[in-house]
């Protein structure tokens, strides 16, 4: 089953993080994270809250500026140190962000725009796609998740699960090379979690490269090829998901898993 080598070759990496550090004031939240994500790979990130999982995701698309470390995306180094300070750097950041989709725990759909307007906003204003094309693409995407008939509704009229699926489609409308998922099912009622995980699973099967911060151990086990366990701002353990979740090597991983799985 797990015949592919875990040590990824230089060429296959879509994202490479080397020794990423992030401090907020005195607190060092990330203490040197190195991680490579290959094209089409799905990696789950698990760990207690406050362990730095979300901060790492936010460093990848520069919603947070790392304090130190190297980011390589699609073979090019990301010059985050000057982010936004010059027009050139701002352009580079825009290109990075349009190539990396992100979905948040709290959906963050824009309440003053309809479902379709949410989806086509960035394609029209950032990618400069002609509105008619963006709309037909957006409608096709909504169709694919069974929400085409909601296109003129406002987000507040949708269930949490529907909103989160629209948020995923909104990110996909930018045609990203990679998707970041930040605890996207944590705010959902339990009966709505399934529809969102199903959509993520089908994305993974279509070959989308994904970095998924999650508390859904089932998703980590069955969908992600590798799982990383975060503890106190470091990757305590990373390995093939099934192996790590069933036979953790690090005792902190074992402790965490027993606490999480205890309730099942």
């Amino acid at each position, binding site marked *: 089953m797990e015949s592919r080598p875990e040590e990824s070759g230089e060429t296959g990496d879509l994202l490479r993080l080397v020794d990423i550090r992030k401090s907020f004031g005195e607190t060092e939240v990330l203490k040197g994270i190195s991680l490579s994500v290959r094209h089409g790979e799905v990696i789950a990130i698990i760990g207690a809250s406050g362990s730095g999982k979300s901060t790492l995701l936010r460093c990848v*698309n520069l*919603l947070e500026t790392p304090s130190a470390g190297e980011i390589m995306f699609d073979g090019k180094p990301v010059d985050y140190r000057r982010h*936004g300070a010059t027009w050139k750097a*701002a352009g580079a950041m*825009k*290109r990075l*962000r*349009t190539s*990396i*989709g*992100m979905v*948040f725990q*709290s959906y*963050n*759909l*824009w*309440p*003053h725009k309809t479902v379709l307007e949410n989806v086509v*906003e*960035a394609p029209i*204003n*950032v*990618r400069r796609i002609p509105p008619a094309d963006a709309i037909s693409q957006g409608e096709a995407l909504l169709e694919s998740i069974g929400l085409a008939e909601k296109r003129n509704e*406002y987000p*507040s009229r949708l269930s949490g699960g529907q909103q989160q699926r629209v*948020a995923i489609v*909104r*990110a996909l409308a*930018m045609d990203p090379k990679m998707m970041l998922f930040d605890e996207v099912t944590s705010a959902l009622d339990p009966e709505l979690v399934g529809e969102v995980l199903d959509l993520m699973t089908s994305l993974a099967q279509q070959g989308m490269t994904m970095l998924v911060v999650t508390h859904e151990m089932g998703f980590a086990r069955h969908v992600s090829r590798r799982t990383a366990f975060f503890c106190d701002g470091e990757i305590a353990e990373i390995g093939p998901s099934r192996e790590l979740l069933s036979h953790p090597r690090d005792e902190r991983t074992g402790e965490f898993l027993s606490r999480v799985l205890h309730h099942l």
Partner: protein
Amino acid sequence: MDNSLIEYWNTFGSYVPGLLYSCMIVMEIALLSIFLSWILGLFAALGKNSRLGVLRRPCEFYIWFMRGTPSLIHIFLIYFALPQFGLAFSPFVAGVIALSIGSGAYVAEVFRSGLSAIPRGQGESAQALGMGPVLTMRRIVLPQVVRIIVPSLTNEAINTLKNTSLLSTITVLELTLFTQMAIAATFRPFEFYIAAALLYLVMTTLLSQFANWHEKRYTLHI
């Protein structure tokens, strides 16, 4: 009965066009000042929220100074004091400047309260999609802020409209000064002050009705 009506008309009728014309002056000054105060207020709010000291400190000072000093002093400073430094304005222009910078400080605080009411994630999700700060502000954050602050902006707009009466002190022939002149000529303070009050009431009511209509139309979904 008939005689007294005719007498009334003889006393007041000739002032009706003047009263209405001075109402137009009030509306002109008020609408200009309100519009300018929104622009000033928006930039002062963004400035005060900025992390850059060079932007933040002047905006903080502006808001602090304007909110802590009387409108009448702003008017006198601009109309009487600035000419000392060679900056002379007509009463109308001085009035518009004074009212807009004074109101702008309040509008800034209104904008800031609106900005703080928008969840951080709203802007973050826009940025994550590659939208820059200006686009994010213009397309995502501000439309939501404006919907929230319409009632407070209306209050402030009504204040500005009423404050135009202070411009009577620098010879702007608006409703209050016109009323005083009419009273000086007719010795009928009660009738004229009541008439002025009613005319102000009509104008402020129009303003708040417009805001209500706008609010109903645009805030359905939030």
